[in-house]
Structures are given as C-alpha cells and as structure tokens.
C-alpha cells in the first residue's frame, strides 16, 4: 500500500527530474516497440492460421479427361459425405473468369494457356468437421480415377504454423532484449536520480526513515517509467498500424484471407504490466546500496 507521502515524493521526484525520466521513458518505448511489433506480427499470423485451419473449403481438381457423368457421380458421392455441405462444379473456363474478376486483370490472362485453370469441384465443409474425418475423405478422393488432386489448404496452414512458431521465438528473444534494456535504462536512470537526490536520502535516513521508506518512491518512479514506456510503445505502434492499415488492408485481406488486426487488449495490458514490474525490479536492484549514513 502506498502512503500519501510516498506518492507525493515520487510525483515530486518525477516532476523535478522530468528530463531524465522523459529520456528514460523514450528509450524504454523504443525497446517496447520492437517487442510490440513482433507480437503484432504473431497476432496476425495466428489469426491467419486460425482462419485457414477452419477454412471450411476444399478444392477437388479434376483430370482433363473427366466426363460430365464422372463429375455428376463425384458430386453426388461427395454430397453424401457427412460434414460436406455443398459441392459446386467449376469448369476450366469459369475458373479463368473468376480469377480474372478477383485480380481485375483480364488482359494479363490472355497470355496464359487454356489449361492453366483445371476444372474443379469446390467443396463447402462444415467448420466443425474434425480434421481426421476431412483427411480420410481427401485420401479416398485421391484414389478416384477422375480426381487429379485435392487441396485442403493444410500445407498453407502448416507453413503459417511454422511462421507463427518462428514469430513466437523471435518475440521471446525480443522480450529478453527488452528485459535487459529496461533493467539497464531504469537502473542507470535511478542511479543518476539517486545521485542527484543524495541529500534527500541522507536527510531521510537522519530523521529515522527505514530503508523501505526511502526506497518506495524510487521504486514507484521506476515502475512508472516502465509502464509509461510500454504505453508509449503501444501508442506509437497503434499510430503506425492505423497509417499502414489504410493502404494495405485490402491487399493483405486478399492475400491471407484475414484483415490485419491490432494487438488485443490483454496483450497491450500485459506489456504495460510487464513494463511496470520490470521498472520496479530494476529500480529496486539499483537501490541495493543506499547512501550510507
């Protein structure tokens, strides 16, 4: 519990040494921006992975020689599979038109060969269909004579999962870097502050203040520095995100199937709490040896 005296002394200390504290907060914000950016990438990769893991779609590509009877029989068979909610035939020509519509570039398609887009049956799969069931169906479909290949986006999901794992590892590394940065920056700042407020500490000890009483305001200051650094980083990232999102939103959505999202509230809160805890710990560590009186 912080007393009125502790909060007042911490506030006065921060106001009087505001330049030093501002510099420290800025340095911490830079460190937290790196961590926040990594977390932002991971957040969006996880969202994309989740989106593709539950895509609810599969494409059954047909061989060139598949007859209309083969297609109808296949469609009928597929619609009887539990979990398959729809089966739409897309001819080679329809596929070419659809793709041209999506990329808005009919001229670019003119140079592509006629068989660049194979005919397919586009399946709608219930989102709650278990992966194992879907894999069984795919394995059986691949054995059918009219089927050339089946795309369930699993490989895409696996690539995303690898990216997410890489992102998490990078974030963990950056978290260690941030930890070191916070300890170094807050520790140095508090040592400087302590040096400049040596008389204050000396007076406090001479009038009978316990070490805890002397340390508390400095710990509060360190904690606030850490928390403000994290808040500054989140604000800066938010600003950058808003600026970038306006330009890249549609492209990213078309590419990965999800709209980019900012850090969730719990992650932002976690960064601020982490900053506060690290700041307090760094401050406490730098105050181990108080002015001896």
């Amino acid at each position, binding site marked *: 519990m912080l*007393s*009125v*005296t502790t909060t007042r002394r911490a506030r*006065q200390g921060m106001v*009087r040494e505001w330049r030093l504290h501002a510099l420290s907060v800025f340095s911490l914000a830079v460190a937290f921006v790196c961590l926040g950016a990594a977390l932002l990438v991971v957040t969006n990769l996880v969202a994309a992975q989740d989106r593709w893991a539950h895509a609810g779609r599969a494409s059954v590509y047909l061989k060139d020689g598949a007859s209309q009877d083969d297609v109808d029989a296949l469609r009928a068979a597929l619609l009887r599979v539990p979990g398959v909610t729809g089966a739409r035939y897309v001819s080679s020509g329809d596929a070419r038109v659809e793709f041209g519509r999506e990329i808005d570039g009919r001229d670019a398609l003119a140079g592509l060969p006629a068989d660049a887009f194979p005919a397919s049956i586009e399946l709608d799969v219930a989102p709650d269909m278990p992966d194992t069931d879907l894999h069984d169906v795919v394995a059986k479909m691949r054995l059918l004579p009219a089927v050339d290949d089946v795309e369930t986006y699993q490989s895409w999901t696996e690539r995303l999962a690898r990216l997410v794992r890489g992102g998490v590892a990078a974030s963990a590394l950056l978290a260690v870097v941030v930890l070191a940065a916070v300890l170094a920056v807050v520790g140095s700042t508090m040592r400087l502050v302590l040096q400049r*407020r040596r*008389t*204050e500490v*000396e*007076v*406090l*000890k*001479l*009038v*009978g*203040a*316990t*070490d805890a*009483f002397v340390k508390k305001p400095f710990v509060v200051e360190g904690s606030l520095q850490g928390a403000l650094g994290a808040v500054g980083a989140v604000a800066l990232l938010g600003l950058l995100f808003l600026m970038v999102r306006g330009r890249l939103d549609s492209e990213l959505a078309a590419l990965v199937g999800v709209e980019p999202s900012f850090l969730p509230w719990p992650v932002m809160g976690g960064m601020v709490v982490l900053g506060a805890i690290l700041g307090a710990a760094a401050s406490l560590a730098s105050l181990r040896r108080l002015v001896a*009186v």
Partner: protein
Amino acid sequence: MPRSEPVDRFRPMLRAGSARFSREAAQRPILVFEDVFKSYEQGSPVLRGMSLVIERGEFVFVTGPSGSGKSTLLRLLYRAETVDDGRILFLGRDVARLRADAVPFLRRNLGIVFQDFKLVPSWTASENVAVALEVLGLPPRLVRARVGEALERVGLGGRGDAPAAVLSGGEQQRVAVARAIVGEPALILADEPTGNLDPQLAIDVLGLFEEIHEGGTTVLFATHDRTLLEVRPRRVVVLDDGKAIDVPNGISSDEYDNRLPL
C-alpha cells in the same frame, strides 16, 4: 567490560502516560559514554577511553579543537559510526550494539542539527520539517499542524511555503532546528550549528536551543566557538587527547583550567 546483546528495536519507555513508561528508566541518566574508543586510522584513536554522563534535561556544550572528536562523539551517538570499544547508553540502551535495522528507531528519538543545515533545497521549509514526522507515519493533518507549530516556535511562521534554497543561512538553520524539535525527541544533538552563521546569528540560534532546552529537552551542543561558551555559563565538556574533561559551570568559572586546548 560487560557486553550487551544486539538490540532489535529501540523503544524508549520514558514518556509518562505511555503504556511502556518505565519509572526506573526515566530516572537513569539520559546518556552515558563508558570507556569509548574510536579510531579511523590504526594507532591514532580519536577517542581513547572517553567516559561521560549526561543527565536528563541538561544543556551541555562539547568543545575542543578541530579533530578532537566532537563530531565523532555525536556520530557515534546517532550511529553514523560504531565504537571500536566501550558502551554508549542512550535511554538505557547500548547504541553501539543496536542492529542496523534498529538504527532508524534510535534516530527517531534524536533531533540532529548540522553545520551545513542538511536541508533538501528543492523542498519547502514545511516539507523539510514535515519529513521528520512523515517517517513516523503520522496522518497528514497532524503533520501539518505540528509543522506549523514548530516553524512558529523557531520564528518562521508564514515562511513554510518558501523553498529552502531561497532562505537565508539563519533561516535555513532555523528550519533545521524546527525539523529537529518537531518530533519532540528526548535529546537534541547540534554539531557546530552556528559554524556557518555570523556572530549575531550564532547567538540568536544558540538562544533558540536554550528556549528548547527550557522546555525540558536535553541538548548536546558541539562547538569550537569560544564566544558562545563565554556568553553562557553552562556545563562544558572539553575533548582533549581523546578523553572528556568536565567543566560543570562553564569556561568563565574559576574551576576552568586555562591550559585546556580551546
């Protein structure tokens, strides 16, 4: 020489009305130095077997030339230094055997005034005085009231909001005195409190300590200013060759040996 066990807390039992009031403790001398040795360098002790008894309610000058151990004596008392040997009994407790975490509780029973005032320049006069009560955890309203009274007592009523840095030397020393008395300590230690003041201000500040003493507080006033010793016929303790020589009625009295180094 008997040795005391380390003491974990410093809790005097001298205030009448307190639950822990002890009549026996209240009748003991407030301060006893028993055969105290202290040296900073091997082979050249500052204090060598110094003994001294100060009774409750006394005003005692401690004097001697530079390096005679006046400040050391006071620093040993508020535990900025520790004795090499001997005992210092304050309110019946051996200060030298206090554990480090008990030292703050010892200092709460002392008021200390320094030559260089030891004020925080960026704090106001009130804040500099209030800190002595804030460490006790007193409620802010009570702190404000008692700080106001203390500043009135030293003649600085109305100057409480002034930053210490803008006060004159005399005013700063008055703030330091207010800080020393605001907690109503059993003993006031003054380490050359007039050393940075002109002669008239020095007399004024001495007068302030005497007023405080008249209220029943014991005062130990270290100075090498012979003028102050001459204008007030009080008990003087002269530190010479690491020992204390008592001059009960002051250096103007017949008992004073003029061969003493002053």
